[in-house]
């Protein structure tokens, strides 16, 4: 239909012309101002509850970092720093922890922060009615919370937990006013009360959360570069699900900060007066896990063949445009104890083919897929389109191609989050990529200890690789209870080596966490789960 094509061209030509002849923004001089409202636009989902004790996911962490503070922080090197707690002491057996608390802090409703408040918060996390998932895991080994005096609290544990301080540094275990919690979940979800530099004023669902400055803020934040309250009058926290729209809003000055930018937008940010903050998330790296509990990946030779054939590097370079670096460790590069072994992951299609022959997958059918006793070498790979970005999904397609060249039939199945969890729960997968954000190397125990193959009542289990290796369990258990830092490091290194040598895990890159900023300075990210803090931020327009 030439007339239709012509008409479409006539309609679009002016638009395309307009788009192509626009001049890029000139770089602006940074003149900082005190006050003003910073507009932050997030691409993460809108929380269903602003109290991160309830549930406990990353969108809640992003937002609650602005109004809640944890007992401990972690610096860029991964060292634990005091925050609302100033000091700690552990008993010989690792079962009793004495924490010293700051005595000069109040919640924004006037309730003093003290040992009673710590007790109320941990009990709130442990209460089944709170329905906490992430926070609950952090405090589940705490049997009893003893209030020694207002500034001292003693935690009695059921088993030793070397990761306790890291667990308590997470935003999901941050401290809230006991009086606020008392109001009940409905009210507390709308506006939790903390000790942070900002206060929740109003939540307009699907639109924004209004935060205003806490004028009485005492700088407990280890990142704060000044005493007293934040510079900004407030923050308008907006939910903009579409990445291109977020970028357009940043470019046009509607918003000052965005998260989850597209790789192309990160690259083109340079020279547009846009600052890029690269703050990968800690704990686990992004990786593909192979289900070692069922055919064909119950054979380590088949797993190694897949890993040798996958060849993700060219894809990572081209799809992420240099914004993501290949990882060879199950842990994030942000973790001081991360152990990497690139040699295990060298691409070698010939070696992969030889391994498959050896494992009995020597015949091929018409489309080149290998066969064994008439069975096709099929790999079901459900992909959560809510969690995997477009670039990551394209990377999986490239891996699919690469693996096909040695005879794997990788079936990528893009599905929504619920269906994805459904497939995992029913063990209907041979390969999967699942993010996991927490703090510290203890994530290895969550992801690869054999106890992680037992599903929770909701059907969820974290050990998607289905690893059940006694020596790995032993290393992880020893690391979890090791109070000596050297022993802990040694045990975690050993655990990572076992995980990598099992070929059940193909590390890809750090969990991507990028921010683009235009018209503001002083934005730092925390060393815990890399959420941004605006305690030092100033507008520069």
């Amino acid at each position, binding site marked *: 239909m030439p007339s239709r094509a012509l008409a479409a061209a006539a309609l679009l030509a002016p638009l395309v012309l307009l788009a192509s002849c626009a001049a890029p923004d000139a770089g602006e001089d940074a003149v900082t101002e005190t006050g003003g409202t910073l507009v932050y636009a997030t691409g993460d989902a809108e929380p269903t509850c602003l109290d991160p004790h309830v549930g406990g996911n990353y969108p809640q962490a992003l937002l609650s970092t602005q109004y809640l503070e944890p007992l401990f922080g972690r610096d860029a090197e991964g060292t634990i720093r005091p925050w609302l707690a100033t000091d700690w002491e552990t008993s010989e057996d690792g079962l009793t922890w004495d924490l010293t608390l700051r005595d000069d802090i109040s919640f924004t409703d006037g309730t003093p922060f003290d040992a009673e408040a710590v007790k109320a918060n941990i009990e709130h996390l442990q209460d*089944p009615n709170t329905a906490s998932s992430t926070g609950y895991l952090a405090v589940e080994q705490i049997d009893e919370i003893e209030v020694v005096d207002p500034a001292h609290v003693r935690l009695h544990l059921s088993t030793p937990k070397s990761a306790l301080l890291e667990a308590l540094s997470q935003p999901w275990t941050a401290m809230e006013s006991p009086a606020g919690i008392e109001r009940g979940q409905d009210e507390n979800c709308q506006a939790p009360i903390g000790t942070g530099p900002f206060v929740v004023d109003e939540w307009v669902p699907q639109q924004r959360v209004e935060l205003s400055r806490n004028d009485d803020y005492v700088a407990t934040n280890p990142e704060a570069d000044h005493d007293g309250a934040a510079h900004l009058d407030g923050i308008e926290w907006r*939910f903009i699900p579409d990445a291109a729209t977020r970028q357009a*809003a940043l470019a046009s000055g509607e918003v000052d900060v965005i998260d989850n930018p597209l790789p192309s937008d990160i690259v083109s940010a340079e020279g547009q007066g846009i600052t890029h903050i690269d703050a990968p998330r800690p704990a686990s790296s992004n990786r593909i896990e192979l289900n070692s509990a069922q055919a064909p990946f119950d054979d380590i030779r088949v797993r190694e063949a897949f890993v040798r054939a996958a060849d993700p590097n060219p894809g990572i370079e081209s799809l992420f445009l240099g914004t993501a670096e290949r990882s060879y460790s199950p842990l994030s590069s942000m973790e001081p104890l991360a152990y990497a072994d690139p040699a295990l992951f060298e691409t070698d299609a010939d070696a992969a083919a030889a391994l498959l022959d050896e494992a009995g997958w020597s015949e091929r059918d018409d489309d080149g897929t290998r066969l064994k006793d008439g069975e096709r070498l099929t790999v079901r790979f459900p992909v959560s389109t809510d969690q995997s970005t477009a670039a990551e999904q394209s990377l999986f397609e490239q891996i699919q191609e690469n693996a096909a060249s040695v005879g794997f039939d990788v079936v990528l199945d893009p599905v929504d*989050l619920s269906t994805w969890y459904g497939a995992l729960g029913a063990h209907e997968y041979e390969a999967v990529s699942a993010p996991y954000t927490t703090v510290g190397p203890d994530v290895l125990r969550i992801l690869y200890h054999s106890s992680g193959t037992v599903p929770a009542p909701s059907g969820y289990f974290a050990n998607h690789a289905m690893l059940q290796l006694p020596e790995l369990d032993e290393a992880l258990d020893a690391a979890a209870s090791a109070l000596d830092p050297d022993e802990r490091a040694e045990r975690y290194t050993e655990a990572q080596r076992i995980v990598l040598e099992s070929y059940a895990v193909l590390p890809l890159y750090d969990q991507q966490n990028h921010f683009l900023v235009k018209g503001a300075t002083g934005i730092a990210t925390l060393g815990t789960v890399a959420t941004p803090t605006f305690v030092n931020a100033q507008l520069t327009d």
Partner: protein
Amino acid sequence: MAAVRWLAARLARAVLVVWIVATVVFFALRASGDPLEAILGGPGSQAGPEAVAAAEREYGLDRPLVVQYAVQLGRIATLQLGDSYARRQSVAELIWQQLPSTLVLAVLALALAWVLAVVGAIIATTARGRIGRAVNALLRGVEIAATVMPQFWLGAVLILVFASTLGLLPATSAGSSPAELVLPVVTLAIPIAGFLAQVSRDALLEADRAPFATSARARGAGEPRLLLRHTLRHASLPALALSGWAFGNLLSGAVVVEVLFARPGLGRLLQEAALARDVPVVIGAVSIVAVLYVAVIVVADAAELVVDPRLRGPRPAALRMPDVAVGS
């Protein structure tokens, strides 16, 4: 009496539509996932057995599915939409918060679509001769292009041009200025306008050549008078009959537009609730959309009666649906 019967028949149809919609949604959501996920903090939640048991009791999920279905229908019948699993808020309140935003969007988009369609039709009939034929061909092409244009793509182009590059209009809605309505309304209106324009232009051209137009011209009626008094009214009939359908289309298009332009609204509420398996919210929102849809069809039918006196007598054969491409 006839009017009462007319209304009663349509109300009965509305009830039937809501019942079918609620039933389909209820079983589709239950078949595709566990609503406990929504209650216990989203998919992958690691809630303990006590929390799971407590939630099952609290929300009646331990009862047989048929009982849960009956309870849900009872709630709709009594307009008690219950509480959201995920947001721990009343469903009625959530819908009430989001509905105005979507209605404003849909009503403005329909109005704009009508204006564009009528203007296009008038240009097509008033341009005559060889130029007229060329203009007509061009309009036909533009209409088809508009009709088949995917809204997410159209919206993205508009954002790129008018927000990102020219900085003339906001790309997103902060709830503060009328300017932020422009791009979403245009995005939503263009495909509908293309569709309505095809229908009303054909009808207008047909009316323009009809015997009554010829006789009116013979009696010395000027073209503007003819257009306003006779042919336009004639031409608006098929488009009016399709406005109910168009409104339903606008409500579903609102999902795309609301996500793209970060606008609050029923569409986005529905999308998020469906992803979270938040059964009460999905059923409540879909029921409201169904009721609105039926209500608009009733209004469109009534408007037809007003515009076309012939319909007030014995009902003639149904108006022929034109055979044209429909965008989504």
